[in-house]
C-alpha cells in the first residue's frame, strides 16, 4: 500500500514537474518586454538611426521572441542613456547618436556575439535534457488525454449505434466480427498517436526555451528523433491488440511526430486548467465504471474468460447440436477408446510462453495402439444468437497443428493464437492415427476465443 502511494505520488510529481518545466520554458517563447519609447528630445532622424541599428542587430540574433525583446529593450535603454550622457558632455544630438552607436560596434557583429553568448553549450545541454524530460511527461499526459478522447469517441459511436438501431440498422452487423479486436486496436493506436504528438511538441517547446533557440530550429532535431524513437516504439515496442487499420495508422506514427514538431509550433501549447483535469478524470472513472457495470457480465474478449463449450469428457446436452466436428476427422470407434482412456483435461494460458496450453490426462492403460498424436486448431464460429458455434465448415484444414507431447500420463501442446491474425474463435481437437492407419479425432475437443496480442511488426510477419 505504501509502495502504491509512493508510486502514485512520484508519478504525479513527475507529471507536475514536466508541465511546470514546459510552462517555464515557454515563457522565453512569448512576446517579452516592449522596447522603451525613445526620449522626446531625440529627433526623428536619430530615432530612425537607432531603430535601423536595432533592426540590423535583431536579424543576426535568431533567439526566441522574449529574448529578442529583452535584448532590444536593454540596448535601446543603454543607447538613450549614452546619448543623454554624451549630450551632457557637449555633443550635439546627431553626433551623440552616432557616437553612442559607434561605441557598440557594428550591429551585425553585436548580434552575432549576443547570439553566441545566449546559445551556450550549457544551455544546449539543458535544452536537450529538459526536452527529453518534458517529452516523457508529455507522452504520459498525451496518452491519458488520448484515452479520454478515445472513450468519448467510443461513446459517440454507441450513441450513433443507438440512433441507427431506431431506424432498423444494427451497428454490430456493420462492425467487424472479430471480438472487438479492431475497435480495441484503433482506440489503442489513437491514444498512442495523441501521446506521440504531445510528447514531441513538449520536447520542441521546452528545448527551444531552455536552449534559447527558435522552435523551428530545434524542431528539426526533435522531428527526426521523434520519428525514429516513436516509429520504433510503434512498430516493435508497443504490444497489444492489432488489426489492419491500426497497423496502418501505427506505420504513420513517424509522420505524426514530424507534423507535430512543425505544425503551428510557434504558437503556445493549449494548457489544460486544473478543473478541466479533475472533471475529465472523474468523467473517465464514472464512464469506465458504468461501462464495466453494463458490459462486464455479458461480454468477454480475453482468452482466459472465453467460454469452454465442450471438452473431451463432456457429454452434456450443450454438445448435442451438430458442431461440424466430422469436418475434422471421424470420431474414433468406442472400442479403440474404452471408458477411462482420458481422465481429465482442459486449456489455459501458458505462463512461460504466454501462449495457450491444452492438455489431456490419460488413464493408466495409455494409448498403445495409436500413433502420430497431435492437437489440431480449427477455425470456429462465434457462439451467439445466430447459431450454436462449433467448427467453421468453410475450412477443410486446421490453421495450426502441434504434436501432442507426452509427459508422464499427460498429453499437452502449446498454441500461440495471440500471434495469429485471424485465430479469433477456435476449436482444438486431439487426433491420432488408429490401428487401421486412418486418422481419427479422440473426442469433441474444446473451444475458446483469443485476440491477437503483439506489436505491429508481429502482426505484419504473422504466419498467415
Amino acid at each position: 500500500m505504501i509502495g502504491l502511494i509512493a508510486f502514485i505520488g512520484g508519478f504525479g510529481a513527475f507529471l507536475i514537474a514536466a508541465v511546470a518545466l514546459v510552462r517555464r520554458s515557454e515563457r522565453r517563447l512569448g512576446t517579452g518586454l516592449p522596447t522603451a519609447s525613445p526620449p522626446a528630445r531625440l529627433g526623428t532622424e536619430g530615432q530612425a538611426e537607432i531603430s535601423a541599428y536595432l533592426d540590423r542587430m535583431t536579424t543576426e540574433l535568431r533567439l526566441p521572441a522574449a529574448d529578442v525583446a529583452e535584448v532590444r529593450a536593454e540596448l535601446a535603454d543603454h543607447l538613450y542613456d549614452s546619448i543623454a550622457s554624451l549630450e551632457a558632455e557637449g555633443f550635439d544630438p546627431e553626433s551623440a547618436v552616432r557616437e553612442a552607436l559607434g561605441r557598440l560596434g557594428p550591429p551585425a557583429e553585436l548580434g552575432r556575439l549576443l547570439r553566441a553568448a545566449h546559445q551556450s553549450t550549457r544551455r544546449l545541454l539543458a535544452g536537450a535534457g529538459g526536452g527529453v524530460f518534458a517529452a516523457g511527461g508529455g507522452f504520459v499526459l498525451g496518452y491519458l488525454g488520448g484515452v479520454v478522447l478515445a472513450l468519448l469517441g467510443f461513446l459517440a459511436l454507441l450513441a450513433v449505434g443507438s440512433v441507427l438501431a431506431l431506424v432498423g440498422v444494427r451497428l454490430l452487423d456493420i462492425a467487424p466480427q472479430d471480438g472487438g479486436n479492431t475497435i480495441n486496436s484503433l482506440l489503442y493506436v489513437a491514444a498512442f498517436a495523441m501521446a506521440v504528438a504531445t510528447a514531441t511538441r513538449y520536447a520542441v517547446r521546452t528545448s527551444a526555451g531552455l536552449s534559447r533557440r527558435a522552435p523551428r530550429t530545434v524542431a528539426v532535431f526533435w522531428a527526426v528523433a521523434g520519428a525514429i524513437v516513436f516509429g520504433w516504439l510503434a512498430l516493435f515496442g508497443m504490444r497489444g491488440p492489432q488489426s489492419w487499420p491500426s497497423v496502418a495508422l501505427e506505420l504513420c506514427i513517424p509522420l505524426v511526430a514530424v507534423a507535430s514538431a512543425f505544425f503551428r509550433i510557434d504558437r503556445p501549447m493549449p494548457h489544460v486548467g486544473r478543473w478541466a483535469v479533475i472533471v475529465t478524470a472523474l468523467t473517465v472513472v464514472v464512464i469506465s465504471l458504468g461501462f464495466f457495470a453494463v458490459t462486464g457480465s455479458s461480454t468477454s474478449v480475453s482468452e482466459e474468460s472465453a467460454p469452454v463449450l465442450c471438452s473431451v469428457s463432456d457429454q452434456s446436452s450443450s454438445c448435442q447440436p451438430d458442431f461440424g466436428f466430422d469436418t475434422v476427422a471421424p470420431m474414433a470407434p468406442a472400442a479403440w477408446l474404452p471408458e477411462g482412456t482420458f481422465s481429465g483435461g482442459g486449456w489455459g494460458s501458458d505462463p512461460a510462453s504466454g501462449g495457450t496450453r491444452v492438455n489431456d490426462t490419460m488413464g493408466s492403460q495409455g494409448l498403445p495402439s495409436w500413433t502420430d498424436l497431435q492437437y489440431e486448431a480449427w477455425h470456429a464460429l462465434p457462439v451467439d444468437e445466430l447459431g450454436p458455434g462449433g467448427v467453421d465448415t468453410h475450412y477443410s484444414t486446421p490453421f495450426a497443428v502441434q504434436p501432442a507431447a507426452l509427459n508422464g500420463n499427460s498429453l499437452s501442446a502449446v498454441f500461440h493464437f495471440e500471434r495469429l491474425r485471424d485465430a479469433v474463435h477456435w476449436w482444438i481437437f486431439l487426433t491420432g492415427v488408429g490401428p487401421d492407419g486412418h486418422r481419427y479425432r479422440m473426442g469433441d475437443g474444446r473451444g475458446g476465443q483469443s485476440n491477437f496480442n503483439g506489436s505491429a511488426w508481429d502482426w505484419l510477419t504473422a504466419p498467415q
Partner: protein
Amino acid sequence: MSRTDVASEGSARLARERERVLEALDGEALSVPAILRRMAERSTGGEAGAEHGAEASDQSLLYPALHSLEADWKLQARWLSDANGVRRVYRKRRLLPR
C-alpha cells in the same frame, strides 16, 4: 592573419571583458551605466589607466560579456524599475543567499 587567429583573438578579448565585468560587479547589483562607471574608475585608477581609457569608449563586447556570463550562471539579471524607468541590473550569482 588567418580566420582562426581572428577568432582566437576575439575570444581572448571577450574573456578579458568578462573578467573586467566580474571585477566591476564585486558582489553588488548594478545597472549597465553603473558597471561602465565602475570599469572606467578601475581603469583610470590603475597603473595601465591610459591603455584602458582608450578601451572605455569601446562597448562592443560589454553586452556579449554580460549575457555570456549570465548564460554560464555566473551572473543573474533582473529588471528593476526606478525613477528613470525600467532598468536591467546584474549581480554575481551566489550558491547561498547572503
